[in-house]
């Protein structure tokens, strides 16, 4: 085992069609970015699943943690005025 590794982990994002957002579809091991991109193509787009790919070293991803979920997202919970339904628009002015 020892130094015979499979290379670092990369996260793969695929864009299904032009104009659509890139969506996370999985991860893979590769030694460098070129290989990561080629492996992503072979692993995640064998059946026309996308037309563009991003690969990102997993170590570069920063994420929120589930334990802090409550307090982390709390600031938005009481701000109902951020939603369109908070406002009263008179009938007769058409769709708004």
């Amino acid at each position: 085992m020892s130094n015979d590794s499979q290379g670092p982990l990369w996260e793969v994002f695929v864009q299904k069609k032009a104009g659509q957002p890139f969506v996370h579809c999985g991860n893979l091991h590769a030694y460098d970015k070129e290989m990561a991109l080629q492996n992503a193509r072979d692993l995640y787009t064998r059946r026309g699943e996308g037309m563009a790919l991003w690969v990102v070293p997993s170590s570069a991803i920063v994420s929120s943690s589930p334990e802090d979920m409550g307090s982390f997202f709390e600031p938005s919970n009481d701000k109902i005025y951020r939603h369109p339904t908070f406002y009263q628009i008179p009938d007769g002015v058409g769709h708004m």
Partner: protein
Amino acid sequence: MGVVNFEDLFEAKLAKNDIIEPKDWMPDNYRKHLIRQISQHAHSEIVGMLPEGNWITRAPSLRAKLVLLAKVQDEGGHGLYLYTAAESLGTSRDEMLDALLTGKAKYSSIFNYPTLTWADVGAVGWLVDGAAIMNQVMLQRTSYGPYARAMVRICKEESFHQRQGYELMTHLAFGTPAQKEMAQDALNRWWYPTLMMFGPPDIESPNSENALKWRIKRETNDELRQRFVNQTMPQIEYLGLVVPDKNLKWNEAKKGYDFSEPDWTEFKAVIKGNGPCNKERLASRNKSHSEGAWVREAAAAYAKKQNENYQAA
């Protein structure tokens, strides 16, 4: 809420059919159970490439060869999706590969049977992938997110595997008498090993209870096995082939077939390493792994150099 009881939160999530994600708190035994199950599943996909890979160079037509290559490549992909799903639980790729190559890890007993004729390629796609699909469709709703997502992707890819196998069987079953005999022989040899794929009977399945409690599995071994037999029988009848089981018959009361259990002593022997091909499979994996070592070394050295150049610039 004052002190948060993680175990209660976890149980509450499962009760609501919520999905557990890698960073969520989970009991150690849940984690261990998943690492074992997912890595074994990954190993099965990888070792599963060998029995069919055996026929790629001898496929009887270019079409058959392309199909088989595509299928075997998919299985390699399935192994990779599953390895990373297991890694999200804190094990490493190297650890898992090491366990496989040293014979410490288990994989599905079915891949320790030989593919003796071209009909076996059909039988494997039709029956073995068919049984795997039945299990994997259930696992699409397993409680661990990365495993469930890998299964959704895998299930999408699997249906071509089963269909190409059945198509191959129809060619043989409706071909010359010798071809039909070859198809029957393949069914005879693959029937019981396929039934074993669902695992031991519920009454003696050591891991089932926890797996069901944790919603890792949602149906029992016997339930899946029964469904597989019910679904496969019309397909066998269409081919005009005969199941190698004299006790198999329709049971109107349970709206399903009665059938004989596979030989569970044989199952245990194969799991323990004494199947017809265990040694050969392990030797093949070890051979290709060590023959690929120079590629991994070169790629790692190249990546390191590129990194150094990047930092220097």
